C-alpha cells in the first residue's frame, strides 16, 4: 500500500527528462553563442559569458525542479506543490477527479517513466500532471486515487451503505481489509475485453485512413525540404541545374508524368497513413473494468486512458467508403470536459457492427429500439447554399475564361460546380435526426457518413436558429448542447423541429438521472 500522506517526490529519472527538455532550448543559445563570439570580439565575450550562465542554469534547474515538485494526499485532496521562486500549489478534491490517464512519450519511454494526468470536469480548467513516475508506482497511485475517490463518493451518497464510518487515512486494519475486499471484488467482478487490435487490424485501419490528409502532410514536408535539397543539389551539380527550370518541366510535362506523379503521391500517402496508424494504435486494447473503460494504445507515445462510463456524453461513429467495404467504423467517445482541455475525445478504430452495439449498450445502457420521431433535412436547401457559395468563386472564373476566349475551360468549371452542388444535395438527403425515448441520434453525410448518439437526459440545452432568409421558407437549424460539445444539423421544417425541441426539453425536465 502506498503511503501518500507526506509530500513525495517524483522518480529521480525525471531530472534527465527535464534536462532533455532544457537541452532542446539550449541548442538555440549555443548557436547564438557561436555566432556572437565569431562576429565581434568586443561584445563576444559578454555574450559567451551570458550563454555560459544560461547553460549552467539549464543544468541546475532540472534538479531544482525535481526537488521542489512534490505531491501528496491531504484531507481527501490531491495536492501538488512546485516551484522555488514562483511557488504554485494545486489542490483537487478527490471526488472531483474525472479521469486518470497514464501517458508516455518516447523520451519517457527510454527513461522508463510515465506521466500521470488527472482531469476534472469543472467550469474552470483544472488539470494536474505529474510527468515523472515509475511505471509501477504510477499504476499503484492510479488505483489508490480511484479507490479513495470511490470511498468518498460512497460516503457522500449513503444509499450504498457499506459501514464506512472510518473515514480518515487507513490506520485501522478493519478498514483496510474492507478496502482490500472491495478492491478484490472490483477486479473479480468485471474485467471484460471489448476490443483488441492485432497487426492485421491496424494494417487495415492504416490502409483505410483518409489518405488525402496524410498526403497533404507529405506535401507539406516535401515542400519544406525542397529548398534545402535544391540548394545542396545546385552546389553539387551546377551544370545540370542550368538547364533545369520549372518552365522546362511544365512545358515538357505530358499526361504520363502527371499520372506517375499522382501515383507516387497516392503511394506515399498510403505509406504515411499506415505508419501513422501503427504509431497511434499499436497494441490497442479496450477493457471494461468495473464502471470504467480503460484504453491502451501507442508505439512511441504510449497512452493509457481511463474513462468512467457515466461521464461519457456523446458517442460518434465515422466511416468512409473504404472502411465500409471492411465493415469498419471509427468510434469517438466524448467525455464531459473542462473547457480548455486538449483531450476532447478518444478514438476507437476498427469498430465492427457488433462492437458498436456493445459499446453503445455498455456506455448508455439502453439500446435503441422503436423509432419515435424522424426528422429529415431538406436536401434542396443544402444544394442551394452550396450553389451560392461555389458560384461566387466559379462564376468570376467563368467570366475570366470567357474574356480570354478560352471557352474550353468553361466546361470543367461547370462540371465542378454541378458536382459540388450534387454532393451537397446528397449530404442533405442522407442527413436526419432520429429521436426515441432514450436517445437523440444524428445521421450525417453521404461519402463520409457519421452517426452521433447522445442520450436525451444528457442534454444541457436545445437551440433552434435560422437566418432571416430561412424564415420565409419555414426552415430552421437544430443544435443540441451537451457537456461533450454541441451537435447539430441544418434545414429542418420549423414546425417539426419545434415538436422535437419540446419533446427533448420536456424529457430533460422530467428526468432526474444524473448527467454526470
Amino acid at each position: 500500500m502506498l503511503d501518500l500522506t507526506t509530500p513525495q517526490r517524483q522518480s529521480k529519472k525525471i531530472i534527465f527528462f527535464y534536462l532533455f527538455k532544457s537541452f532542446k532550448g539550449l541548442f538555440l543559445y549555443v548557436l547564438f553563442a557561436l555566432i556572437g563570439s565569431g562576429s565581434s570580439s568586443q561584445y563576444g565575450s559578454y555574450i559567451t559569458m551570458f550563454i555560459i550562465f544560461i547553460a549552467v542554469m539549464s543544468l541546475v534547474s532540472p534538479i531544482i525542479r525535481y526537488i521542489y515538485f512534490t505531491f501528496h494526499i491531504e484531507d481527501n485532496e490531491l495536492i501538488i506543490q512546485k516551484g522555488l521562486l514562483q511557488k504554485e500549489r494545486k489542490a483537487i478534491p478527490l471526488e472531483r477527479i474525472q479521469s486518470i490517464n497514464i501517458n508516455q512519450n518516447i523520451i519517457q519511454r527510454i527513461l522508463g517513466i510515465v506521466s500521470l494526468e488527472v482531469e476534472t470536469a469543472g467550469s474552470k480548467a483544472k488539470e494536474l500532471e505529474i510527468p515523472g513516475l515509475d511505471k509501477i508506482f504510477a499504476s499503484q497511485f492510479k488505483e489508490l486515487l480511484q479507490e479513495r475517490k470511490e470511498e468518498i463518493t460512497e460516503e457522500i451518497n449513503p444509499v450504498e451503505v457499506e459501514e464506512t464510518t472510518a473515514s480518515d487515512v487507513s490506520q485501522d486494519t478493519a478498514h483496510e481489509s474492507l478496502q482490500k475486499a472491495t478492491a478484490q471484488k472490483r477486479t473479480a467482478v468485471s474485467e471484460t475485453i471489448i476490443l483488441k487490435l492485432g497487426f492485421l487490424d491496424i494494417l487495415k485501419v492504416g490502409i483505410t485512413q483518409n489518405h488525402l490528409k496524410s498526403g497533404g502532410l507529405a506535401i507539406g514536408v516535401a515542400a519544406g525540404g525542397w529548398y534545402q535539397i535544391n540548394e545542396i543539389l545546385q552546389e553539387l551539380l551546377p551544370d545540370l541545374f542550368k538547364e533545369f527550370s520549372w518552365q522546362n518541366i511544365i512545358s515538357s510535362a505530358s499526361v504520363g508524368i502527371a499520372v506517375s506523379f499522382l501515383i507516387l503521391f497516392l503511394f506515399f500517402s498510403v505509406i504515411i497513413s499506415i505508419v501513422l496508424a501503427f504509431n497511434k494504435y499499436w497494441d490497442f486494447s479496450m477493457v471494461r473494468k468495473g464502471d470504467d473503460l480503460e484504453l491502451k494504445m501507442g508505439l512511441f507515445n504510449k497512452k493509457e486512458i481511463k474513462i468512467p462510463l457515466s461521464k461519457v456524453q456523446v458517442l460518434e461513429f465515422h466511416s468512409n467508403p473504404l472502411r465500409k467495404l471492411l465493415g469498419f467504423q471509427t468510434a469517438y467517445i466524448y467525455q464531459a470536459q473542462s473547457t480548455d482541455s486538449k483531450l476532447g475525445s478518444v478514438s476507437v478504430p476498427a469498430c465492427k457492427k457488433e462492437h458498436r452495439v456493445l459499446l453503445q449498450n455498455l456506455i448508455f445502457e439502453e439500446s435503441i429500439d422503436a423509432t419515435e420521431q424522424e426528422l429529415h433535412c431538406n436536401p434542396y436547401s443544402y444544394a442551394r447554399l452550396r450553389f451560392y457559395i461555389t458560384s461566387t468563386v466559379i462564376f468570376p472564373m467563368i467570366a475570366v475564361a470567357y474574356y480570354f476566349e478560352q471557352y474550353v475551360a468553361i466546361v470543367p468549371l461547370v462540371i465542378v460546380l454541378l458536382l459540388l452542388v450534387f454532393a451537397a444535395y446528397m449530404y442533405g438527403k442522407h442527413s436526419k435526426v432520429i429521436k426515441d425515448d432514450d436517445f437523440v441520434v444524428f445521421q450525417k453525410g453521404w461519402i463520409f457518413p457519421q452517426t452521433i448518439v447522445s442520450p436525451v437526459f444528457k442534454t444541457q440545452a436545445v437551440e433552434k436558429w435560422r437566418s432571416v432568409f430561412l424564415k420565409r421558407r419555414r426552415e430552421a437549424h437544430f443544435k443540441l448542447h451537451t457537456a461533450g460539445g454541441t451537435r447539430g444539423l441544418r434545414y429542418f421544417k420549423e414546425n417539426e423541429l419545434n415538436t422535437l425541441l419540446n419533446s427533448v426539453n420536456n424529457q430533460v425536465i422530467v428526468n432526474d438521472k444524473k448527467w454526470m
Partner: protein
Amino acid sequence: MTNDTILAADLPNIEVTDFRKHPKRFLNKKLIAKILVFIPLLAGVVVAYFVVTEYPWLWKVAGGLWVVLLILSVFISYKEYFVRGYILREKDITYRKGWLFHSQITVPFNRIQHTEINHGPIDRLFKLCQLDIFTAGGSSSDLSISGLDPKEAAKLKEYISGKLSAHA
C-alpha cells in the same frame, strides 16, 4: 405543496406569444451605442475630404458607404429589439434573439450550473444589466440575457437559484 406526477408528454409546448420583451430603454441604448461606434468612422470620411483633395470621388464613396452602413446597422438593431425576449416557465427558461440570425435556446433549470448579474458602464447609464446563465455545455450553450431591468434581473436570478437548490 403538490406532488403530481409529471409526464414529458403532458408538459406544455413553448408558445410564441408568451415571450417577454425587454424595456424600451434597451432599444435606446442599442441605437445610441451603434451611433457611438459610427462616429469615429465618420472622422475617416472627414479626413478624406480635407486631405485627399485630388480625388474627390474618394470621400464621396466613403461617405456614401458610411451612411449606408449606419442605416443598415440601425435598422438591424431596431428589428432585433422586437424579436428579443425570454419566457420563464416553471422548469425552464427560453431566450430568443437576433433578426438577421435568429436563435432560440431553451435551458432546463436542472442543467444550470450558476447565474451571474453583470453590468457595464453604459448599462448603468441606462439602468440596465445582464443576466448570465451558465450550463455545463460550454460557452455555446450559455445564455446571456442582456438589457434587463436590474430589479427584474435580481428577481429572475433569485427565482432560478431557488429552482437550482431544489434540484441539487
